[in-house]
C-alpha cells in the first residue's frame, strides 16, 4: 500500500499486516482526546475506530437514539471487522462513544479495556492533576497487560514521533493557505483519516516524501475557499462534492482535522504530565468547550488565517455536542457576516440535497458565476 488513500480504504488489512510484521498488539480508541503517546510507548499501535457504512440490523437491539457513527462502530465490531483489535480504550467524551465502547465490551468481554477520565472541565487548577493521575493509572494497566515497562526513554520516543507527525501534518495544512493551493481538501482529509489508523513512524516517512512531492506540484487555480466545521467526519464525500462544484475546502475545525494537530507535547521531566498538558491544552472540542466558549474564536481565527470565503457546518444527526454548540457558532458567523450553511449528515450523503445548499453558498459568495459540473474548469491545474 503506497498512498494514504489506499491505507484508509484497506485499513483493516493494513493493521493485520502490521501485527503480523511486528508481532505487537493493536489498541482501538474513539476520541482524539485519547493520549496515544502512552499507548505507543507501550509498544501498541493505537488505531482510531472509524465509522463507515454497512447495512445494520444488529444495533437496534442494543441502542436507541445514537448517531449513526457510534451505531456503525458497534455494527462493525458485531460483524467482525475489528477482529484484530486486542484492546479497546474509551475516554471521557461524548456519551454515544461511551455507549459504543461499553456495548462492544458486552459483546467481547475478553477484550482488554480501559476507561480513561479526561476532565470535561479542562481548565481548573486541578484538571492537570486528575489528568496526570489518570495517565499513570492507564500506564500501569498497560504495563500489567503487556508485561513491559513504559520507561521515560520509550515515552520520549513516542513524544518525538507524535510531535513530528503533528508538525508534518501542520505543514500540509499550511500549504492550503496559499491562494493557489497544491493540495485539495479531500486529499488532506484522506491523509488525516489514514494517519489515525496507522503506525505513526511509518506515517511520518510517508508524509515526508509526500510533502517533498506535492510542493513540486502544479498548484490548483484560485477558487471559492470554504471552511468545514461540525461533527467528526469519516469520509471525504463532502469535500469531493464541494470540489465538483468548483470550490475547495481549505481548512476545517474538526476534532479529527486541525483539532488534533494544533499543539505538541512540550518535553518536561515529568513525561506523563507533559502529555497530559498537551491534551488539556488542545483546542476545545464542542463538547468539552463547556465553560467560556473558546471554540468560536478559534473558528474565526482559522477562518481568517486560511482566508476562507464561507463556512459549511456539517453536523451528524443526533450529535448532541454540536447540537448544543451550534448556537454560538451561528451567532459568531452572523455577527461577522460570514456566509454559511448548515446541514445534517447521516449514513449516506444525499448528493442533490447537499449540492443544492453548497451551490447556493458558492453562488451567494460569487453570484453570476457560471458553473459546469466537475473540477475541470475552475479547479483545473494551470498550465
Amino acid at each position, binding site marked *: 500500500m503506497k498512498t494514504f488513500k489506499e491505507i484508509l480504504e484497506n485499513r483493516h488489512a493494513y493493521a493485520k499486516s502490521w501485527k503480523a510484521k511486528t508481532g505487537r498488539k493493536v489498541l482501538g480508541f474513539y476520541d482524539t482526546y485519547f493520549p496515544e503517546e502512552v499507548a505507543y510507548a507501550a509498544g501498541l499501535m493505537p488505531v482510531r475506530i472509524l465509522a463507515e457504512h454497512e447495512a445494520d440490523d444488529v444495533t437496534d437491539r*442494543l441502542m436507541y*437514539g445514537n448517531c449513526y457513527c457510534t451505531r456503525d462502530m458497534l455494527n462493525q465490531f458485531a460483524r467482525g471487522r475489528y477482529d484484530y483489535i486486542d484492546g479497546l480504550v474509551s475516554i*471521557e467524551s461524548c456519551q454515544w462513544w461511551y455507549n459504543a465502547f461499553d456495548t462492544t465490551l458486552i459483546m467481547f468481554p475478553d477484550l482488554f479495556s480501559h476507561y480513561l477520565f479526561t476532565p470535561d472541565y479542562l481548565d481548573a487548577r486541578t484538571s492537570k492533576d*486528575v489528568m*496526570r493521575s489518570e495517565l499513570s493509572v492507564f500506564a500501569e494497566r498497560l504495563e500489567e497487560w503487556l508485561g513491559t515497562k513504559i520507561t521515560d526513554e520509550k515515552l520520549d520516543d513516542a513524544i518525538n514521533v507524535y510531535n513530528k507527525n503533528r508538525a508534518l501534518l501542520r505543514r500540509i495544512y499550511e500549504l492550503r493557505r496559499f491562494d493557489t493551493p497544491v493540495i485539495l481538501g479531500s486529499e488532506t482529509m484522506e491523509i488525516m483519516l489514514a494517519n489515525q489508523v496507522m503506525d505513526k513512524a511509518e506515517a511520518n516517512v510517508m508524509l515526508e516524501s509526500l510533502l517533498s512531492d506535492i510542493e513540486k506540484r502544479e498548484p490548483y487555480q484560485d477558487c471559492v475557499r470554504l471552511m468545514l466545521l461540525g461533527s467528526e467526519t469519516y469520509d471525504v464525500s463532502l469535500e469531493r462534492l464541494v470540489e465538483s462544484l468548483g470550490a475547495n475546502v481549505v481548512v476545517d475545525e474538526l476534532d479529527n482535522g486541525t483539532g488534533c494537530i494544533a499543539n505538541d507535547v512540550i518535553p518536561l521531566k515529568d513525561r506523563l504530565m507533559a502529555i497530559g498538558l498537551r491534551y488539556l491544552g488542545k483546542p476545545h472540542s464542542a463538547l468539552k468547550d463547556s465553560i467560556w466558549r473558546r471554540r468560536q474564536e478559534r473558528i474565526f481565527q482559522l477562518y481568517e488565517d486560511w482566508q476562507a470565503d464561507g463556512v459549511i457546518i456539517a453536523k451528524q444527526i443526533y450529535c448532541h455536542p454540536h*447540537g448544543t454548540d451550534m448556537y454560538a457558532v451561528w451567532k459568531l458567523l452572523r455577527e461577522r457576516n460570514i456566509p454559511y450553511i448548515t446541514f445534517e449528515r447521516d449514513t449516506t450523503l444525499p448528493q442533490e440535497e447537499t449540492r443544492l445548499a453548497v451551490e447556493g453558498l458558492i453562488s451567494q459568495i460569487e453570484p453570476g458565476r457560471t458553473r459546469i459540473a466537475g473540477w475541470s474548469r475552475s479547479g483545473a491545474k494551470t498550465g
Partner: protein
Amino acid sequence: MNKQRWETRPLEIWGKAKELRAQWQRSINEAAERPGAMLAHGNTGEFDWSIGFDDLTVIEDNPVGAMMASKSDAFSRKCRLASEVRGWGREICGYVQNCWGSQFLGYEMDDGAFPFRDMSIPFPDPCDQHLKRGQQCMDLSPIPRWGADYPMYLGPLDPKREQAFIDHTVYCYLQIIDDIERIFDHKFDDEKMIGSLNILPALREQALRISRLMTHTPAPIGQKELYSFYTLGLLTKVDPKETLDFWTSFADEVQWRVDNHIAAVATERFRWMEAHPSPWNFLKYFRYMEKYGAVCIGSQYSHIISGPIELGEDGQFHHIQRKKPPEGQEIRTREDAFRHIFTEARGYRFKDDEYCRKWTITDFAKGFHVDGAIMPLWRGGVGCTLTRKEQGLRLSEMGVHVLHYEGSQPGDRTDLDERRFLDQLDTWMESLGLEKLEA
C-alpha cells in the same frame, strides 16, 4: 381473574405538599425581586448552595422545563422553536429547550419577563447535555460561570483514582464559593453548611422507608404520588427542617396504609415499573393502566430520593455504603465538609451512573416484585436513553415483560404519539392475557 378489591383513599399529606410547593414557588418569585438576591442556574442535588448563601436561589432548568411541558403544549412548543432557529439541535433535551427557549423569547408562560440568571453554577451529571447547558444563560449576558466534573470510570473502586477526583471536585466547589464572595459581596456561612450535612442523609432515611413499603402488595401508593412529592425533597428544600418533617409524616402515612391494606389501585394484579415518565402532559397513562388492574410502583428515577439503594440478601432495600467518610473525623472547615459530601457521593455514584444502570435495574425489578417494565426511548436526551435497550434485554431475560415506546423526552411531546402509545399498552396487556376491568 383476580376478584380481590382493596380499599383506596387519597393521601392525607396532599394538603401539606401543596403548601410546600407553593412556598417554593413564592421563594423563587421573591428571589428575583428581593434586593441583593442572587439567582443562579445550577442544581441542588448533592449540595444546596442556598444553605451557605442566604440570598442565593438556585434554579435548575429541568423543573422549569418540565412545568412548562405539563402546563402548556403551545408555549413549550414555541420555546423549542425559538431555540431551534437559533441553532439548537432537535436532539437536545426538552427541558433545556423549553427553559432556555423561554429565555430566547424573553418572556415566560404567564407573559412575565424571563428572570435572567446572575450566575451559572456547574451541574455535574453523567449526561453530556448537563455539561453544556450552563452556557445558555451566559450567552446573552456575561455572568460569572464555573465548571466542575462528574468523574467516573469502569471497574472496581480505585482509591488512587478516587483521591484525584475528590480533590478536583472539592477544589472546583471551593473556588466557586471564593468567587461568589468576591464578586457578589456575600459571605458564605460555613457553620450553617456544616450543620446541614446530616439533613440529606436523614431525608434519605425517610424516603427509603417509603421505598421499602412500596414493595408490599398491594402497593400503598403509586408512581404518580411519588412524582408529585419527589421534587419536594430533591429540588425544593426551602426549609430543610420542614422538608424533613414532611417526609417523616409522609412515610408514617404510607406505613399506616400498608398496615391497613390501603391500596393505590383497588384491583392490583399487575405490578410494573418504568424508567422515566412520559411527557408530563400525558400522565393519564397511569390511569389507563389502572383499568387493567396494573399499578406502577415507581422507577429508579423517582426512588432516587432515597439515595443510592441496593437489594440486600434479606430481599429488602438498603442504602449503598460502599465508601463512607472516615468515622470520628471532625468536620471543621468548608473544605472538610465538601470532602465529606463528595467522598460519600463517590461511593454511590457507581450505582446510579450509566455504567451500572443496566445491572442495578434487575435489583430494582426483583425488589419491587414487578411483572412488567416500561422503558421509554427518548430521541432527545442522551443520558435518559443510554443503555435503555440493554436494560430491557436484561429484564426480559429475568422474565419481566418489557415495553418500549418512543418519544422526544419528558419535557417535549413532539414525538410522543399518544394514541399509538395507548395502543401499545393495550397490546402489552392483552398479549399477557389481561383485559380491561373497566371501560
